[in-house]
């Protein structure tokens, strides 16, 4: 239990650090349920960098949100998450917004490069009438040594297209592993995702920083943790945070100026 608590605290700390100016929950918004014990940390709050205007419109007009989950390992299962990663998001949002119907359509193709996913995302978004795309990306491109510039262009084009078509997007970034910590290409892809999110004012969920801090804490405290344990905890908590990020994003305002620098 102590280990889970440590993991949760680490992730929560990282998410707090990553969060740009704290979003004040607007009076009209629902009271967001606290994160589960396993992911709880005092003072931590997951906050959207950017609003999700199209999801907000869908909520207001239709009481229904269509989410398209796409990308490399979007549908991967993790033991503690009943029904998979995105089931947590669906359950949480439906509980937070009474009467809201959340439809998550899974169209993850594992191993797919961002450039190949680009056209498919546009097609699938149209078929699903998506209000929001959760795009888990970067790992396949990093492992396949796709040039960073090509990756940047492919992702930016797709994000721009989605925004032009009134579809919100959340980028779910790379994972942390010790073996890739010094890998220049992997880090460059990670940086590219960060830059795209900042440039396009879209929300980015990064597992990397969370897992990196976890690793640091593990070393400090001498608590033995396998890669699998870190991954499990990360998936569980990231699903919880992602759900809250969407909920918070529904009540965020459009940024008047470019977002502050990511830390």
């Amino acid at each position: 239990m102590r280990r889970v608590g440590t993991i949760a605290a680490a992730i929560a700390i990282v998410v707090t650090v990553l969060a740009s100016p704290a979003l004040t929950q607007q009076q009209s918004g629902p009271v967001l349920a606290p994160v589960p014990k396993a992911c709880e940390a005092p003072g931590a709050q997951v906050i959207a960098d950017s609003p999700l205007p199209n999801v907000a419109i869908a909520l207001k007009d239709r009481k229904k949100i269509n989410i398209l989950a796409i990308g490399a390992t979007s549908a991967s299962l993790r033991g503690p998450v009943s029904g998979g990663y995105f089931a947590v998001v669906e359950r949480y949002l439906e509980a937070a917004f009474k009467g809201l119907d959340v439809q998550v359509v899974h169209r993850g193709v594992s191993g797919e490069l961002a450039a190949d996913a680009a056209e498919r995302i546009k097609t699938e978004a149209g078929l699903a009438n998506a209000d929001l795309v959760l795009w888990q990306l970067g790992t396949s491109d990093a492992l396949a040594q796709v040039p960073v510039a090509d990756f940047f262009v492919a992702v930016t084009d797709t994000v721009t297209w989605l925004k032009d078509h009134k579809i919100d997007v959340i980028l779910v970034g790379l994972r942390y592993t010790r073996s890739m910590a010094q890998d220049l290409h992997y880090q460059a892809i990670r940086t590219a995702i960060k830059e795209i999110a900042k440039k396009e004012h879209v929300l980015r969920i990064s597992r990397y920083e969370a897992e990196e801090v976890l690793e640091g804490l593990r070393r400090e405290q001498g608590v033995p943790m396998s890669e699998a344990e870190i991954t499990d905890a990360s998936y569980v908590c990231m699903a919880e945070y992602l759900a809250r990020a969407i909920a918070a994003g529904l009540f965020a305002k459009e940024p008047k100026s470019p977002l502050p620098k990511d830390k």
Partner: protein
Amino acid sequence: MPRAVNAVDFWRGFALVSIFINHIPGVFYERFTHRNLSLSDSAELFVFLAGWSLRHVVGRPEDPAPTHNLIYRLSGRALTLYAAHMTIVMLAIAMLAAAARILENPLILEWNNAAAVFNDPVDTHIGLVLLSHQLGYFDILPLYVVLMLVAPLIAIIHRQAPNWLVPVSLAIYLSALVFQITIPTWPTEGQWFFNPLCWQLVFVLGFTASRERGPGGWVRANISRIRLVALPIVILGTLMVWFRWWPDATRVPEPKLLFIAGKTFVTPLRLIQFLALIAVFSALYPLIVKALPRLVDFLSMLGRNSLQVFCTASVLSLAGQILRFYFRGGFVVDTILVGTGIILLGLAAWLSEWRDRTQKAS
């Protein structure tokens, strides 16, 4: 003696090499496969030619194979395909596990939809056996297994009511498009990457086109005129891919799948372009035979031994992915990987024919 060099085996060999290259994402030579200039890719060609090959089992109209023999042979073929699929999937899982261990990189365990195998092994192994869980790039053979299981039905409909085969197949295809009927995956949520309800039409068209009578006979009799219509379609398809003139899926009318380009449902845009492509490129075969006889020999050998070569290609392409990651890709690495891979595909085909020759001789 292996069968003589012919266009079907040549194009099937071509499709196999293309699939091998396309299944190493990011490889330098990927940009030279025909999918970069075509709405359709090698998957359509592979399935169409699989349908074409069905004629060898069904037999000639004047000398049809007995129905029970047909069912027995095609069911046996489906079982062989299934066994081959399970073998290469197990090899792939072991390769990913070994690579993750040797390179101390858990990310490799999540590659190509393998994450569930390692994280939720109980359900996922059931899914693997039921074909409801498929690894990325290892998803064509499950389609082929399903097609081979329904092949006796296709052959029987063709035999009993030949004029009904294409309309029935088309009706199933259009129903899947209009109602967006998919085959779900389990335990991970999603859908079969190759929707059998749609891809069966490609298979049926391949089979129908191979027959001397009916639509196949009509195509043969009118191939020159068909090519005149097909050429502009091929050119338009190339322009669409080159300039990214994709129909906007958010703006096309319902049923949307009738108007967009999608691989899972092999939508009409892809299918029409593919049929036009084979009509045009079938004219090139005699020229290729004259100009590049050794290439034709080689690709035909691959095509004659398509299952062995396909399985080898699947495993080699995964090995290529892992090696590219380890050696960081680049032109030299990619050239060695693709060059060695194609030689090994040739070796797999040669060994298969050598074994057949040896068995016959003894």
